């Protein structure tokens, strides 16, 4: 029993032909409509777009060298007209570094989160759905991954692969190929929590009546999984992605200290924060406040968008603020 009456935008999908020739909306179009109407989601979307535009436009206007090199004599100066976000410990302009740092942080963050959410949902869902020995194998594998320190994995990979990685060129910037390794490692070592949570939710969902109804109607496993179970775990997936994004950006910071990922002088929001730690007691607040601000803005926006997405998918939802 759905709550169509309370939603002002619902169009029943009964038959292909309806008097007046109005075409019914597909579920996908429905979701999009509901999303569009969701005020908070739009705020989030605008936030993300604004930051991305800032980063891309900024890197066209500001040359990369301005972010990577500085004058030692101008080091550790607070925000001034010349450097609106101040300068860092080797005299580089923080504003420029935020622009260029954002590119790498967001690329790493988004790709790592996509990877970890995909793996986590599939592992947790498959384990819950099939149960039995599939569950046992997948869950034991999850426990093993939990027990293995990802830090050591990163150090070891840095040691063995450090020298032999080619550089990749995207959009005119060259990145060390080890960025790809960092994405893969962060993605491969952060999915376990989500897998366990998804599994727990699906364990209870799969016992629900409408699932057995769908099964008796002949729906395939894959269809049940993606059409019924996953949408109901979307809320958890959204939360996990949001938190995972922040976590991936911060983990990346530490990775460059192990010899992997981008090396100084290339900036990322994370390594700017990491370096700011050494200068806390000197009152150099501008070194960490600005990267921190941007990270929080990104995850808040992602979170709002994610909430909107979750509400849009949920046919029960009465929320479309």
């Amino acid at each position, binding site marked *: 029993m759905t709550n169509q009456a309370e939603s002002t935008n619902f169009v029943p999908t009964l038959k292909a032909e309806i008097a007046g020739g109005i075409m019914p909306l597909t579920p996908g179009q429905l979701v999009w409509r509901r999303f569009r109407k969701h005020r908070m989601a739009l705020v989030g979307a605008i936030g993300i777009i604004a930051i991305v535009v800032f980063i891309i436009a900024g890197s066209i206007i500001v040359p990369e060298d301005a972010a990577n*090199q500085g004058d030692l004599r101008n080091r550790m100066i607070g925000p001034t007209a010349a450097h609106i976000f101040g300068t860092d410990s080797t005299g580089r302009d923080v504003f420029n570094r935020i622009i260029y740092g954002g590119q790498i942080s967001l690329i790493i963050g988004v790709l790592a989160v996509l990877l970890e959410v995909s793996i986590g949902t599939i592992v947790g869902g498959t384990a819950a759905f099939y149960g039995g020995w599939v569950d046992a194998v997948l869950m034991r594998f999850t426990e093993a991954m939990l027990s293995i320190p990802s830090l050591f994995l990163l150090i070891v990979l840095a040691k063995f692969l450090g020298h032999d990685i080619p550089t990749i060129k995207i959009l005119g910037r060259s990145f060390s190929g080890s960025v790809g390794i960092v994405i893969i490692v962060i993605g491969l070592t952060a999915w376990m929590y989500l897998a366990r949570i998804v599994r727990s939710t699906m364990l209870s969902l799969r016992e629900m009546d409408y699932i057995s109804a769908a099964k008796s109607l002949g729906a395939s496993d894959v269809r049940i999984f993606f059409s019924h179970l996953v949408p109901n775990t979307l809320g958890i997936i959204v939360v996990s992605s949001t938190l995972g994004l922040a976590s991936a950006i911060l983990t990346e910071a530490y990775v460059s200290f192990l*010899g992997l990922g981008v090396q100084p002088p290339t900036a990322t929001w994370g390594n700017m924060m990491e370096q700011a730690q050494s200068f806390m007691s000197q009152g150099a607040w501008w070194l960490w406040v600005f990267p921190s601000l941007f990270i929080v803005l990104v995850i808040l926006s992602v979170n709002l968008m994610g909430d909107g997405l979750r509400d849009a998918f949920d046919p029960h939802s009465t929320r479309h603020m």
Partner: protein
Amino acid sequence: MKRTMFLLVSLVVVTSMILAGCGPKLKVDVTAKANGIPDGSYVAFPSGGKTVTIAYSQEPDLVDALFSSMSYSAWVDQMVQVGLGTWDANNNLVPELATEIPTAANGGVSADGMTITWHLQKGLKWSDGQPLTSADVKFTWQLLTDPGNAVYTRAGYDQITSIDTPDTTTAILHFKSLYPGWQTLFDSGPNNQGNIQPEHILKGKTGLEKDPFIHWPKVSSGPWVITDWVAGDHMTFLPNPNYWKGHPKLDQILIKFVPDPETAKAALKTGDVDFVPDFAESDLADLPALEPAIHTRVDPGPEFEHYLFNLGVKGTGVGQSDYDGPCPFKSVDVRKAIILGIDRQTIVDTLLFGKTTVPASLWPNSSWYNTNLTPYPYDPAQAKTLLDNAGYTPGADGIRHGMCNGVDTKLSFNFETTNKQLRIDMGTAVQGMLLQIGVEFKPTFIPSGTFFGTYSAGADMATGKFDMAGYTTGFYPDPYTDGFLCSTVISAQNQGGDNNYHLCDPAMDTMLAASNASADPAVRKQAIDQVQQYMYDNALVIPMYARANVMSYLDRLILPPTSVIGGMMGDTFDWDVK
């Protein structure tokens, strides 16, 4: 539902308590007696007594410095164990347990220099009342040369063939050949590992690295006794009633382990801690502002930071490496150009707040330093000229390239060092500077456990798979020159070597041999000066800056002057408070 929550929470709490209870009760035992020390000699927290609290950022893995590589072990060991001689504030060797330093004049050093006679003071005692005699000196040598003991190093002690002890205060050392560094043996001090060990406690045992006494020496020859050690937290030192000099000016010293320097600064401000000996040069940004409540002293130290070129030559012979160093580095002009292209003085002025110096060669702040040399200036114009003359011209991307050994080579070098913030900043600054002269400098920062790895661990510097590297080295107190010999170049044939420079130069070998051929310090100094001149002329390494010991302490603490060799813990006997 509420019940479920309650059950859950209690499950968490109970489980944790079970886990906590599984371990032994918290061991915080401040009674001297419980630690095997004779009762009646101490009061745990003397009322009205003078106490000083020190903050160390690392805890010693074990205290007896003969078995540990940690400087923190040596610093603690200096307080409880002493040697025959020690180093005063002017870096001179003065007697400690001995009555005088052996010289040729007083008959302590034989004519051929191979027999050294030490005389101990009369009536010396360990803190447990047992006499400290020449038998302990002989025992220390036996301990160090026992192959069953995993001591840190035997260097020097293995040159002694025998020790005679005709009476309880005389020890006669017989060397198998002339050993100019004999003065560094059996000494106190953070770098000498020569503290006298108690025969009456350790006799007859081997594998001493596992012995509880080596971990926590409870019987001392030095001014203090460690009466308490709470793992990971703090150590307590009370005066040794049998120390030959008497009672220290203080009544108690406490060492608290505070890993983070920011916390250490906060602790100084709140007065929780009186003395922090191990700040970094970068902390000088805000420490001086804390005067006059908190004093900061910057003492020149015996170490210096340097950048090295990989000078390896590929081959299987003596002095050859597994890999060739970059071809451009074979040219003196290229090396000189790189030195000229780095503005070391600005680095010192900005990143090190002008508190230290740019050395011209190795071993600054020591008596061995060649004072005739002045550091290469910052001269990018001259650097560019040198590179042009060497045949390297800038390409389209601004990086120079030219023919080297028939191959078109770019002046693009990778650089490795550890991931300390100061090193990162310095490497980044150098990168910018070298770009100005058309040299590409690509730093990578890795953990020190990987960077300093040995050949068998596949570490880049040891195996020779690097272009440039940077780290700190020093002299302790004899200039360490083995690292430049052909015979110590690390390769598959010689995995235990420590010539990270992979340098093999017969001229250097000859000069270095000459510096070890005589016991006369004047002769040695001349030879060492020649070595430095040669290294300077040939730009074999890049000395970046002389490292300083930065220590801060509250105004109430009265610290005696510290010596470069003895270090800041060399004279805790004379510490006092207002």
